[in-house]
C-alpha cells in the first residue's frame, strides 16, 4: 500500500518509517507474529527483555485481568541474550524493521555486560534499558525509582555501546520529570515511558493475593491517562525524544501521546487483545493525518494546546 501521508518520525539520530513500535514483553521476539502481522510495516520491534543468562521467571499464577487492564508478574522470563542472538535474530534480520533489544540486569555490571555484548551485533539498532527491575545490591529496590541510580545505569550502558540507548522509565516514582532529566544528563538518547504501575489483586474467598508474586505490573487502557500525563511531564522536562507507552489500543490513543509530546509510541497489551493492533493503529493514523491535512508526524508531536 502506498503511504498517502508521511508517517515517518525522527527519533534523535534515528529515522523510523512510522512512530508505532511494539512494547517489550508483549511481542515476544517478533517472529511469533510473522503470520499475523506484516513485520515490515512496524516502526520498530522492541523484543522481550533480555538478561545475560536465561531466566525461568516467577511461579504461577502470573497474570490476572483487572478492570480495563491486567496485572502481570512474569518475572522477566527470557531465553537470554546469547540464545536470542543465535536463534531469533537471524529471522528478524530478514525484515526491514529496526530491532531494539530490551535489557535488564540485577546489577549495574550486568547492564554494562549486556550493552557490551549487543554493541557488537550489527543488526540490532538500539537498546531499551529496563530500569524498573530490582537492584539486588540495594535489597531489591528498583534502579529506576532513584534519579542518581537510574543515571548510573544509563551511564554504564552508554560507556559500553555506541548504539542508540532508550531509558525505559518506571512510573512508580514521585517525579517522572526528575528521573527523565537525570537519564538525559547521563547520556540517554531517548526515554520511553511508562513501564507498568505496581498493583495487586486479592481473592476474597481464599484471602490470598491472586498473583503468586503478590504484586504485579498493571498494564492496558486502565493506565492510559496516567501514562499520558507522565509523557507530557517528561516531554516538557527533556530535550531528547520521548516514546509514549501505556494502554494504547487505537490510533486515537497513539495520536494523543504524540500530541502530548511523544515522538513515537509503543503498543503493548493491545497485542494480546488483537495481534493486528499495530497494523490497525498505523492505518488509523494514516487516515487521521489524511483527513486532518496533517502532512508529517513532526507537525503533530508536542502540539498540545494549553
Amino acid at each position, binding site marked *: 500500500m502506498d503511504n498517502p501521508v508521511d508517517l515517518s518520525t525522527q527519533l534523535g539520530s534515528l529515522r523510523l518509517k512510522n512512530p508505532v513500535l511494539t512494547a517489550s514483553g*508483549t511481542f515476544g521476539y517478533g517472529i511469533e507474529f510473522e*503470520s499475523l502481522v506484516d513485520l515490515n510495516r512496524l516502526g520498530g520491534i522492541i523484543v522481550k527483555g533480555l538478561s545475560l543468562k536465561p531466566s525461568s521467571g516467577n511461579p504461577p499464577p502470573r497474570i490476572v485481568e483487572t478492570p480495563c487492564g*491486567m496485572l*502481570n508478574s512474569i518475572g522477566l522470563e527470557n531465553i537470554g541474550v546469547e540464545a536470542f542472538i543465535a536463534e531469533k535474530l537471524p529471522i528478524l534480520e530478514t525484515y526491514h524493521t529496526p530491532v531494539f533489544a530490551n535489557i535488564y540486569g540485577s546489577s549495574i555490571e550486568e547492564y554494562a555486560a549486556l550493552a557490551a555484548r549487543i554493541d557488537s551485533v550489527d543488526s540490532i539498532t538500539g537498546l531499551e534499558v529496563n530500569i524498573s527491575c530490582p537492584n539486588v545490591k540495594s535489597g531489591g529496590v528498583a534502579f529506576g525509582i532513584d534519579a542518581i541510580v537510574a543515571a548510573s545505569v544509563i551511564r554504564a550502558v552508554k560507556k559500553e555501546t555506541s548504539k542508540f540507548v532508550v531509558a525505559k522509565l518506571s512510573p512508580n516514582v514521585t517525579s517522572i520529570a526528575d528521573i527523565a532529566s537525570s537519564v538525559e544528563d547521563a547520556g540517554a538518547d531517548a526515554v520511553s515511558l511508562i513501564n507498568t504501575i505496581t498493583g495487586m489483586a486479592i481473592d476474597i474467598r481464599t484471602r490470598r493475593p491472586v498473583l503468586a508474586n503478590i504484586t504485579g505490573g498493571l498494564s492496558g*487502557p486502565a493506565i492510559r491517562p496516567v501514562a499520558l500525563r507522565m509523557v507530557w511531564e517528561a516531554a516538557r522536562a527533556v530535550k531528547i525524544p520521548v516514546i509514549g507507552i501505556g494502554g494504547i489500543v487505537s490510533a486515537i490513543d497513539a495520536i494523543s501521546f504524540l500530541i502530548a509530546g511523544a515522538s513515537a509510541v509503543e503498543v503493548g*497489551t493491545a497485542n494480546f487483545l488483537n495481534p493486528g493492533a499495530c497494523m490497525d493503529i498505523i492505518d488509523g493514523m494514516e487516515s487521521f493525518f489524511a483527513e486532518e491535512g496533517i502532512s508529517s508526524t513532526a507537525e503533530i508531536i508536542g502540539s498540545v494546546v494549553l
Partner: protein
Amino acid sequence: MTDQKIIQENGIVVKTVPMGTDCRKITLDSPEAFAEARPGQFVTLAIAGMDTPLLRRPFSIHSISGIKEGRCLVDILFKVVGIFTKNLSEIKNQGRVNILGPLGHGFTWPKKSRTEKSGPVVIIGGGIGVAPLLFLAQSLRQQRPVHENSRVFIGGRTTSDILCADDFTRLGYKVIISTDDGTRGEKGMITTPFHARLSDSRPETIYACGPMPMLKAVFETAAEHKVPCQVSVETVMACGLGVCLGCAVKTSSDDIKFRHVCKDGPVFDASELWMAS
C-alpha cells in the same frame, strides 16, 4: 509436525445449541485454515465491540463439523461462567466473533501403518472437560476402527453436566458415566470406575481433560499401570501465542521449571507436569 499457519479473522455464528443447564455449543463459520486444526488445539475469541472483559478468551476446539467452499465450521463447547461466556452465548446467528488460531500443541497418537491394528484407548473427561475430547475421539475413529476395549469415561456433578455421551457412543466407544449425586451412571467421582476398569484391559494411551485434581488422579492411576497419559490443562491466558508467558505451569523437572500452556500445551504428557508418587 507440519507448520501450521495461525490466522485471525472474523467468524460468523451460524448456530447456538443449549447443552445441559449452563453450557452451549456454538458453531462458527470460519476460514478454511481451521480445517488444519488438530484435536486438543484451541482458539481464542474476542467479541466485536465488547471491551469488558479486555482479554481474549481461550476455548478448545470441540469439533470441525464441516468444510466447504473455502470455509470451515468450528464448534466450540463452553460453559457460561462469566461475562464473556454469557455474551458469547447471546450472540445471534450471523453475529461476528473474532477467532484466532489454531493454537497450541494438541493430542498425539502413535503413527501406525494401515494394516497395524489399533490398541484400545481410554478417554476421560470431567464436566466441560469433554469439550476437546469429542474432536479427539472423532479423529482417532477416522484413522481406524474403534478398538472393542476402548472406553470413554465422563463425569459430572449431576446428570445435566454429562455432555456428548451419545456422540461418543455413536462413534463406537463404550461410554461409562458417573455423577457426584448419582442422578446418572455410577454415583461418585469418575476416577473411581476409571481406576477399577483399567486393570481389565491395558489401554495404549489415556487422554484426559477436566479439573486439575481429576487430571492428577488420572495421572497417578496411569503411572501405576505404566500407561502413557496425555492431559489437556487450562490456565488464565492473555496472548495465546507464547509471548506474554502468563500461562506458565510448573513442571516435574528441575531443568525446565515452567511450561507454557498456550504453546507447549494445552495438552501435555502428564509426566511432564507431575512425578508419580
